[in-house]
């Protein structure tokens, strides 16, 4: 008892230290990666919410309201009230904090999966390239994974004990998952199926339980379950209503929630402009197991996938063993049932996501969390199977090497190849070249400001493909976005023009001297930057005397 108390105390301390290191590592270099179009777009919407207090759910784009509202406290803490004063770090700190909660979300299932499995899963989660990368990415995926996983973990608890608190928490978690991202419907579907499967399994194996005076046979009460459904719906309804109605300011948002599925089902089928995101069914497997493009390194989370496979095989073997022996302990039944529940919850989702032609790499996170959990279970199974000291020592060495490799890869992916297309998680990402273009504009704007002139930037693209330029131009007051060449460009110091319009544009420029540079905004997408020649000459004059 005394020892157990101390163990818990030291474990809590070490676990908090571990979380602190995770937090620090994720904050380090938070702004080095350029803002992705989606990040920039969402930041812009959050900026409107910050400045005008207005948010309207859009059933066609941008997913749910949670991310935007969740960012506001960060601004208030930083005492920032204008969009132009916001920074990448402010936005990206939000998913980082949610990612920390994913670690904590594993705590409720620790007692079911086993302590070694929990430890190994936490370790693999901390060094997962995908999780690290998208934890610093201002998109909805990380909070979505958090609330989806909390939903299934609380639901499992409910299935197990049918207590009121887990069903309330599951309802809130599912609601927040929907408030975050519409694809929660896939999680709901796969969890519904897995719940039916696990209930059937529990019902079947309850006859095999070796009961004692202290342990009762398990049986799920459907009557009790039906009574709890209204409670579940009420707690689901409250956050859903608050967020989609924009806190009572936009009743249309509640209807738009349903309308959105028309858009998302259409998009999932691979129709429309989203066709560029269509990929083969094995895309997610490819980025997890083997990805090698151009000169960059070989990327793999194969170590996790391998341990996960062992976890799945041993879990199903345990379940089959129970059926063959026709007897089991409560602990064995609990563990095997949980594994079945988790397996179907995560992998039905994985199968659906793989079959939908529309694919983006961040969608892998939720199934990957399942893989990480099974990897922990797999390592635990090996640990229990091999009890000799040398065997366990070997297992620890293997775990160390695997973790080291994953950590190194995470370091490379987040600090070296953070915007390089050789990285599997860099997807249609803003090029660092665009950041250089913006640096150029701001450098030259300083010259204008010193001469009491206001910088003006015109961005011209025939298909209105501007993002993430508006984000980067947020500090410049005078800017315009045009789909055709404006009638007059007199005195405009900066023009960003897409190559499709450059020939036509240069005709307009006749006798107006401009310096021209090219920058990549995304892989294969270019923009010309035209700089007024007189301004460029002043810049070069300054540069020519500057030495690093």
């Amino acid at each position, binding site marked *: 008892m005394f020892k157990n108390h101390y163990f818990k105390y030291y474990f809590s301390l070490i676990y908090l230290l571990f979380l602190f290191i995770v937090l620090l590592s994720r904050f380090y270099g938070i702004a080095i990666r350029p803002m992705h179009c989606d990040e920039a777009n969402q930041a812009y919407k959050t900026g409107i919410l910050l400045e005008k207090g207005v948010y309207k759910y859009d059933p066609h784009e941008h997913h749910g309201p949670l991310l935007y509202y969740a960012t506001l406290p960060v601004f208030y803490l930083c005492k920032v009230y204008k969009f132009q004063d916001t920074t990448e770090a402010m936005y990206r700190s939000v998913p980082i904090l949610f990612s920390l909660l994913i670690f904590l979300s594993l705590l409720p299932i620790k007692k079911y999966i086993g302590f070694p499995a929990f430890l190994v899963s936490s370790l693999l989660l901390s060094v997962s390239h995908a999780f690290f990368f998208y934890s610093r990415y201002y998109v909805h995926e990380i909070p979505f994974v958090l609330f989806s996983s909390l939903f299934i973990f609380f639901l499992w608890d409910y299935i197990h004990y049918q207590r009121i608190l887990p069903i309330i928490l599951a309802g809130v978690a599912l609601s927040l998952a929907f408030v975050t991202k519409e694809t929660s419907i896939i999680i709901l579907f796969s969890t519904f199926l897995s719940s039916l499967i696990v209930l059937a399994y529990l019902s079947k194996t309850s006859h095999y339980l070796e009961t004692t005076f202290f342990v009762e046979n398990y049986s799920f009460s459907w009557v009790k379950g039906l009574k709890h459904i209204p409670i579940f719906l009420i707690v689901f309804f409250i956050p859903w209503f608050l967020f989609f109605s924009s806190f009572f300011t936009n009743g249309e948002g509640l209807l738009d929630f349903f309308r959105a599925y028309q858009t998302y089902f259409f998009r999932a089928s691979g129709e429309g402009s989203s066709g560029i995101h269509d990929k083969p069914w094995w895309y997610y497997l490819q980025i997890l197991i083997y990805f090698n493009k151009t000169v960059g390194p070989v990327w793999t989370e194969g170590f996790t996938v391998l341990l996960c496979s062992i976890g799945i095989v041993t879990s199903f073997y345990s379940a089959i063993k129970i059926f063959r022996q026709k007897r089991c302990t409560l602990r064995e039944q609990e563990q095997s049932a949980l594994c079945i529940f988790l397996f179907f919850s995560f992998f039905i989702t994985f199968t659906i996501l793989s079959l939908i032609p529309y694919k983006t790499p961040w969608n892998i996170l939720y199934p990957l969390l399942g893989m990480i959990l099974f990897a922990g279970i797999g390592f635990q199974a090996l640990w229990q199977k091999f009890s000799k000291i040398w065997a366990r020592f070997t297992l620890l060495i293997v775990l160390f090497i695997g973790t080291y490799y994953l950590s190194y890869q995470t370091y490379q992916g987040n600090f070296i190849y953070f915007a*390089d297309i050789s990285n599997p998680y860099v997807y249609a990402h803003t090029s660092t070249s665009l950041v250089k273009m913006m640096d150029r504009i701001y450098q030259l704007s300083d010259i204008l400001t010193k001469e009491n002139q206001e910088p003006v930037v015109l961005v011209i693209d025939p298909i209105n493909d501007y993002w993430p330029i508006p984000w980067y131009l947020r500090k410049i007051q005078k800017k315009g976005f045009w789909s055709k060449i404006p009638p007059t460009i007199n005195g405009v110091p900066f023009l960003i023009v897409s*190559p499709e319009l450059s020939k036509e544009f240069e005709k307009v420029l006749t006798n107006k001297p401009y310096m021209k*540079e090219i920058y990549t905004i995304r892989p294969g997408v270019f923009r010309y930057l035209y700089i007024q020649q007189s301004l460029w000459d002043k810049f070069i004059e300054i540069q*020519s005397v500057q030495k690093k």
Partner: protein
Amino acid sequence: MNYTNKIYNVLPLFGLMLICLITLPTLYADDTPPAGKIELKLELPEPFFGGTPIDYYSPNLEEEDYKDRPPYYVPDGVALISKDKPVTSSVPPTRGQLKQITDGDKDYGKKSVVELPAGLQWVQIELDKEYTIYAIVVWHFHEGKRVYKDFIVTVSNDSEFKDGGKQVYNNDYDNSAGLGIGKDKEFIENNKGRLIGVDEGVKGKYIRLYSNGNSYNDMNHYIEVEVYGK
């Protein structure tokens, strides 16, 4: 014989004269190197066929030249002096080993590439003693078309280049590298490499090559560097 027929009879003669005028200079072209000089013979790797055309523009970009490089002459006795010489760099490479830069392997394959991280980075070759250098040939990554930015080559006798070194190439047109504005051109990589000729020769023991990313990404790549001198 009418006037028209006379013209027709003379026309072949004119044609023959025209051909002679065009071809004579080449027949009499002097392939022999100037006195005391020899032609620098380079072993070129296989060219890469494939990839997409480069979509890059810079006010300083040299037009792509598909022709063979004209012969380059160096003083008699000039030889390759950098083979297997030690190489250091501003930061450790993210791919490959620095010794590959002077190992003679110029292939475009990924196994031949040495990659340095993003930003302004340098590699430095240390010769065994001071030489008079007459040519430096550089192959960046030439699988596909790339332009390496802020490519600057300096030679010095100081391993730390505190004296700044003598620049023999600089295509940094906006001084973004902070080593001065260069007048040389940006160029598209290919299997021929970039020959930097130093007619008058430059004395030094250390050769430092800078670059600041390329038209494809921010990384810096080297396949091979050859230094010729005596």
